[in-house]
């Protein structure tokens, strides 16, 4: 029953977010601030993880390819498919749920605890629109992060496979282009947009409706991470079932 109530509250929150709009000039400034904090601030960790995970995927494939009948170009093919289809859009989003999601929940939660949200409401400002809408708009640029992650993941795979002496560069590049389906990119970016929306709104919900003091802010951040991850995984399954099967 409590979960149903939370789902209802979440959708009512979304209605509030797209309700009375904040002054445009203020909103513009807030959006750029959020892009800087959420998107630009995450590029470093995303780049680091993508490069090394890409490398590990290539290494694992290479080390497990014992059958001489299987072409070495499969290393590049496997790396490309796993990075584009799952690693970059889904697993980076789960990592972002930990980094960005916790940040969103704790920053909005702290504002709730210190009555800053009440202050906005008393001034006659739609606090949901002021706090959450800029985050949703900022997250529209999230697919660029994923594109960078895909590129660096493949670069990491190339570096590990070619520099590690597992496969010649030409064979790797040939494998990278084998049976490439442009639709897979559409699928990856389509679900990235959905994850971006989830990443902006679920942590905001947990921060906005939290009750209690600073200890509860920490608890809300943890709950937010768990639920954001669960919803991303379930959405990933549904989208994959609908678009790829």
């Amino acid at each position, binding site marked *: 029953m409590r979960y149903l109530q939370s789902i209802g509250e979440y959708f009512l929150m979304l209605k509030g977010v797209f309700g009375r709009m904040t002054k445009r000039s*203020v909103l513009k400034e807030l959006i750029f601030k959020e892009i800087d904090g959420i998107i630009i601030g995450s590029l470093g960790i995303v780049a680091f993880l993508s490069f090394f995970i890409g490398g590990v995927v290539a290494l694992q494939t290479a080390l497990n390819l014992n059958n001489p009948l299987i072409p070495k170009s499969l290393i590049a093919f496997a790396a490309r498919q796993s990075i584009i289809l799952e690693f970059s859009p889904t697993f980076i989003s789960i990592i972002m749920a930990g980094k960005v999601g916790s940040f969103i929940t704790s920053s909005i939660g702290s504002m709730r605890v210190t*009555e*800053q949200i*009440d*202050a906005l*409401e*008393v*001034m*006659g400002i739609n606090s949901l629109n002021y706090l959450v809408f800029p985050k949703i708009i900022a997250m529209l640029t999230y697919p660029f992060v994923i594109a960078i992650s895909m590129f660096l993941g493949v670069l990491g795979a190339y570096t590990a496979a070619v520099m590690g002496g597992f496969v010649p560069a030409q064979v790797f590049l040939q494998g990278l282009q084998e049976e490439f389906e442009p639709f897979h990119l559409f699928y990856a970016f389509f679900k990235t947009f959905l994850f971006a929306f989830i990443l902006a709104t679920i942590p905001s919900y947990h921060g906005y409706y939290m009750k209690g003091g600073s200890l509860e802010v920490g608890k809300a951040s943890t709950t937010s991470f768990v639920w954001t991850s669960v919803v991303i995984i379930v959405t990933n399954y549904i989208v994959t079932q609908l678009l790829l099967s």
Partner: protein
Amino acid sequence: MIEVKGLHKSFGDEHILRGIDFVFETGKTNLVIGQSGSGKSVLMKCMLGLFTPDKGTIEYDGKPYSTFTDEQKRDLRQEMGMLFQGGALFDSMTVEENVMFPLRMFTKKKKSELKTRVDEVLERVNLVDSGKKYPAEISGGMQKRVAIARAIVNRPKYLFCDEPNSGLDPHTATVIDNLIHELTVEYDITTVVITHDMNSLLEIGENIAFLKDGVLAWKGDKSKIFKTDDETVTDFVYSSDLFKKVREAQQQGL
């Protein structure tokens, strides 16, 4: 002027306000006092429009809030200033940006004009040199003064203060009390202060409402509250040792 008539408010089975009638006068500091759980904060939240009363009316300069359209309610909110217990300053903004915030949200003036008004208000609360600092870099008393500056920057008609002295030393508390009183007279505002602080009562209690269990148990001003024989009021007012001793000394003619 804010007039509250027959105000009732319940949360579930809990009847918090049980028919409050009171007039909050313009140009005066109107104090709402009472023990924790007496309904002070609920009364203020009803006046701020954050809670809808179950019964009764709240009139702002003779106009009942229940008859306001959504747009009129929004306009009314912009005529209100609020000083929260903890200040509720925005951590991510400097003092100057905090004070400028209501102006940026609701006026179309140029930044230079906004800056002039902000400087004027910061000067009024004696914080000229702190404009570039963040709330975390200034003291609790200064944070309260910034919050007052933010509350009055839009020249509100109504100022609400929720325990403005909590967490402050007696000297700073007096400074804040006097500042609230001076601004009330200067801007001719209807000021509503919720407080537990007996010093505030002595300093600025021009019109006092004493609530007990959601009922208006006593009303008057600071000259009357220390002379009343009403036990419910005296139990509250003389609950501290200091005030008890002052009373005993008065009774002994010392």
